[in-house]
Every structure is written in structure tokens, then in C-alpha cells.
């Protein structure tokens, strides 16, 4: 084979390809999303530095050497994060080595609550051991990462209980009846879902951790919802995203409600694919990433064998526009338990029982296996 033959063979082999304009559109959405995130991170760092200058009374150049700042403090993490972002952005690599959240907790199908190394995925420490299959998979860490809230199935499978444990170990304490614990960013309010037995409607309740007072912010009975699959707070603590489920094969309903209970489910925002998407496309297991971006699992068009024809993990805005395709999912698995860390940069979800992690919207990689839930902060 000479050079000319190779040239012709390569041209023939590569085939006639006409890239769809949709490709460019997706790239533009991804870029817009990343620019917005970077700007937010930079603004946060600017604010943190300004605060440091004002409070500590040191010059900007001396700030980074402040020996009193603990290495794991939120401010330090933000600074490191943004610095790495600026330094590594875009170099043509999909994997970025930027620092991940320091604390990752997983609920195993075996009933073990474990601390997991966020980088290697190896189990670092056993927090608690419950009976196999009792952990429902809902997990939420307190803002200071010192306490973990999790849900446990009751003997009646339609009822469950929220418990908590210190992340340094110790006694498990019962918090309330309910499932899907989600702590607000300030750590004072705990959102949870609750149903009073099989056949009863599900409601979402916000509970004051210190006083124990509760108020119902979304009553599933008004729309006939029988359960809640996922629950998360917007970063500013004003809204809750609820994945309502229904009996009788009705599709789920991803709803954004006001956390103060001022909205009604009849008028609340319902998050779903735009009208030009496939009719049977479903967005589910949504989780807020910031104030207006949500990580969802999209599946489309169930087949006779029960598999989906398409499965994607998407970052979408609450108007229902797709910002980023994070991953194409395995059609043989269900994709659940979407979550993001505090910065909104590091995403987690379960592919079956495999934990997948994505940094900055890069293609997710498997981190651990055998889990029914995970969260990091």
C-alpha cells in the first residue's frame, strides 16, 4: 500500500458524514452552562477574598497564606476550585483532576452505611450496619458534614422512618416518620416525604430540626400522587423539587414548589421535556444543582422487554430546556438518586447499584458498586 492508496482507503472508510446541527446546539448549551458556572465560582471567590480582606485586615496578596484558615474550610475549597478551573479550562481533556468533595457517604444494599473515598471509591469506614435491604437510599448530609440523615424502610413497605447518625459514628437516632430526607443549605430545615400506609397519598413536609414543628408544603392527595421518589432543595432554600409518583402506570411528575408552602400543586411548575421532544419521554429522579438547574434522568419509550430505548442524564433548567447531556445511560439499568455537591460542580447518580460520578459535566465514571443511595458534600 502506498500513500495514495492509504489516502483513498481512509477517505472511503470514514464514509460520508454530515454532522447534525443539533450537535452544535448541544455544544453551545454545554458551553453556556459552563461559562455560567465558572462566572458563579469566580464571583464567589471574589466575594470570599473581599470578605477575607475586610475581616482579617490583610492585603490581597497575603490572603492565600493565612495560616488560620483550615484546609477543609468552605472558603478554601472554593478558592482552590476556582483556581483550578481557571488553570485547567479548556485543555481538550474530558477528565479534570479538580478536587472533589471531601466527604462521600453511601447506603449499601447490604444495609451498611459507609464513608467512601470520593476519589478511589473505596470504603473508608463503616458508620452503621442495619438489616439487609432496609436502607431505602435517601441520604442527606448536614452543611457542616457532621451529621447524616437517612431513611429506613419499615415492616410495612409503604412506610418508612428517617434516622440520623453522626458522621464520626455513634448512636443512630430516630428523627421522624417519612422518607427522602433533604436538609436545606442552612441545616435548619429538613424536607421529607410521608405517606400514611399503602394506598394513602404522599405529602411533602418541611420540619424544623430544632423545634420539631412541621408544615405540609405539597399534598400529593390534590393530584392523586401515591409516593415521592426524590426530593431536593434549591441552593437558596426557597424551592423544593419533588418527583411525585402515581399508581396505575401514570407517569411521574417532577414539580417545583415554594418551600414556604405558598404554592399549590395545581399551579406549581412541572418540569418535563419540551413539546417537540418525544411524546413518551420522561424526566425523573430530579435533583437541584443550584437555584435553577436540575439534574434529571431522562428515559424514553419503554419497549416490550421493559427496557428504555434511550436513557440520558441531563442538566436542565427549570423552564425545561436541556443545558448539558451529562451521560448516555445504560439501557439495561435504571438511573436513580441524582445528586450534586454543594458547589453544584460534582454530580452523582446510580446506574443500577453502581455509583457514577461526574466532575464539571464530564463523562461520568463508575466510583463504587452495590449502593442504593449516595451523597457528598
Amino acid at each position: 500500500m502506498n500513500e495514495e492508496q492509504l489516502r483513498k482507503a481512509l477517505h472511503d472508510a470514514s464514509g460520508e458524514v454530515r454532522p447534525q446541527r443539533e450537535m452544535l446546539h448541544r455544544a453551545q448549551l454545554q458551553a453556556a452552562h459552563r461559562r455560567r458556572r465558572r462566572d458563579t465560582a469566580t464571583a464567589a471567590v471574589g466575594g470570599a477574598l473581599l470578605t477575607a480582606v475586610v475581616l482579617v485586615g490583610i492585603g490581597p496578596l497575603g490572603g492565600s497564606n493565612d495560616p488560620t484558615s483550615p484546609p477543609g474550610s468552605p472558603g478554601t475549597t472554593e478558592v482552590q476550585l476556582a483556581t483550578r478551573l481557571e488553570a485547567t479550562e479548556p485543555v481538550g481533556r474530558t477528565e479534570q483532576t479538580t478536587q472533589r468533595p471531601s466527604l462521600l457517604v453511601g447506603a449499601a444494599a447490604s444495609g451498611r452505611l459507609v464513608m467512601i473515598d470520593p476519589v478511589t471509591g473505596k470504603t473508608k469506614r463503616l458508620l452503621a450496619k442495619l438489616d439487609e435491604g432496609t436502607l431505602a437510599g435517601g441520604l442527606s448530609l448536614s452543611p457542616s458534614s457532621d451529621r447524616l440523615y437517612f431513611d429506613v424502610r419499615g415492616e410495612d413497605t409503604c412506610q418508612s422512618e428517617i434516622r440520623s447518625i453522626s458522621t464520626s459514628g455513634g448512636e443512630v437516632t430516630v428523627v421522624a416518620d417519612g422518607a427522602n430526607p433533604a436538609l436545606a443549605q442552612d441545616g435548619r430545615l429538613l424536607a421529607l416525604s410521608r405517606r400514611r400506609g399503602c394506598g394513602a397519598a404522599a405529602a411533602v413536609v418541611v420540619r424544623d430540626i430544632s423545634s420539631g414543628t412541621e408544615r405540609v408544603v405539597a399534598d400529593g392527595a390534590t393530584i392523586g400522587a401515591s409516593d415521592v421518589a426524590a426530593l431536593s432543595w434549591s441552593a437558596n432554600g426557597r424551592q423544593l423539587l419533588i418527583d411525585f409518583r402515581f399508581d396505575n402506570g401514570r407517569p411521574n411528575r417532577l414539580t417545583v414548589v415554594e418551600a414556604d408552602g405558598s404554592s399549590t400543586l395545581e399551579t406549581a411548575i412541572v418540569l418535563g421535556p419540551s413539546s417537540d421532544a418525544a411524546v413518551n419521554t420522561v424526566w425523573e429522579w430530579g435533583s437541584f444543582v443550584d437555584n435553577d438547574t436540575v439534574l434529571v434522568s431522562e428515559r424514553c419509550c419503554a419497549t416490550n422487554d421493559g427496557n428504555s430505548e434511550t436513557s440520558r442524564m441531563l442538566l436542565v433548567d427549570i423552564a425545561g430546556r436541556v443545558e448539558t447531556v451529562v451521560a448516555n445511560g445504560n439501557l439495561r439499568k435504571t438511573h436513580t438518586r441524582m445528586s450534586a455537591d454543594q458547589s453544584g460542580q460534582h454530580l452523582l447518580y446510580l446506574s443500577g447499584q453502581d455509583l457514577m460520578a461526574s466532575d464539571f459535566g464530564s463523562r461520568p465514571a463508575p466510583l463504587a458498586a452495590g449502593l442504593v443511595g449516595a451523597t457528598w458534600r
Partner: protein
Amino acid sequence: MTTVLGVFARTPPLDDELVVALFEDQAPALLRAVRLMVDDPQDAEEIVQEAFAKLLTSRKRMRQLENAPAYLRSATFNLARDHLRRRGSARRKQHLLSAEEHAVSAETIVARQAQNNDVVAALRLLPERQRECLVLRYFMALSEAEIADTLAISKGSVKTHTSRGMAALQATLGAER
């Protein structure tokens, strides 16, 4: 060019004509080149899409539009290399990431079969640098200097990889025939 730079000095609108023109000019060749190196057309599309996303993310690069084709080439080949390494690593670890997170559609299988000729198969057996040099030289028709820029290696290395790759390809195809 002043006008072009002026346009990109501001945040470009999503449907900017220049971006569309750049895409239509560059994407077909990049996509075909990547399809020679990775075996899944969907992966190839994602790689090229990601290269454009990286370009569009950087306002600085958007202001240097004349460098965009070179940047896109460079990013695309880096991404393809990462993809192949990750895939190899994943297979070694038996994580089956490729199969798992990118389940194969019927369309993909047909496309794979269409691509699956001797030359491409032999090309994919080559070490990554040799493969990249051959694709850039004989498919994208780049000069040695342009290949060196794209892969961030010296012109001497480009010559070495190209000639070794060509020899290996001839040996493989000769042995099969």
C-alpha cells in the same frame, strides 16, 4: 477580521452565524477523522461535540477565531486519545464502562460494520501517535508542521511516527493478504 473579532469580543449569541459557519466547515472532517480512530460513531460525535463545547466555553478562544480550527483539531485528538485510554483502562478493570454507559444501538452496529474494513482495523492496531499522525497526514492532509502543532510534538517526531506507522500498516495489511 476586525469585524469578526469585534463580534466575538462580546458574548456571542447561540445562533451566531460565524459559529455555525465554523461548525459546518470543521465538523465534518473532524467527525470523519475521529470515526477512523474510535469504533463507536456515537462516541465520535460526542468527542467532536465536546471539542466545540470547549472552544465555545472560552471567551478568550472565541476572540481568537483565526486559531479556532487548530484548537478544534487539537482538542478533538486529545479527547479521542483520552477516550481510547479510558476505554482501554475500563476494559482492563472490567468496569465495562463503554458498554454500560453507551449501550449499542442497531444503527451503531450497522455503522460499525460499514466502517469495519481492513485499513481501519489495521489503523486501530497502531500505537496512538502513529495512528494520529497517519490520520492527520493522509486523511486531513495536514503538513508536518500542522501535525506537530496539533499533537504538541516536534516535526521530527511527526516524521518518525508517520513513517513507522506507514511501515506497520503495510506489514499488517501485507500479512493479511
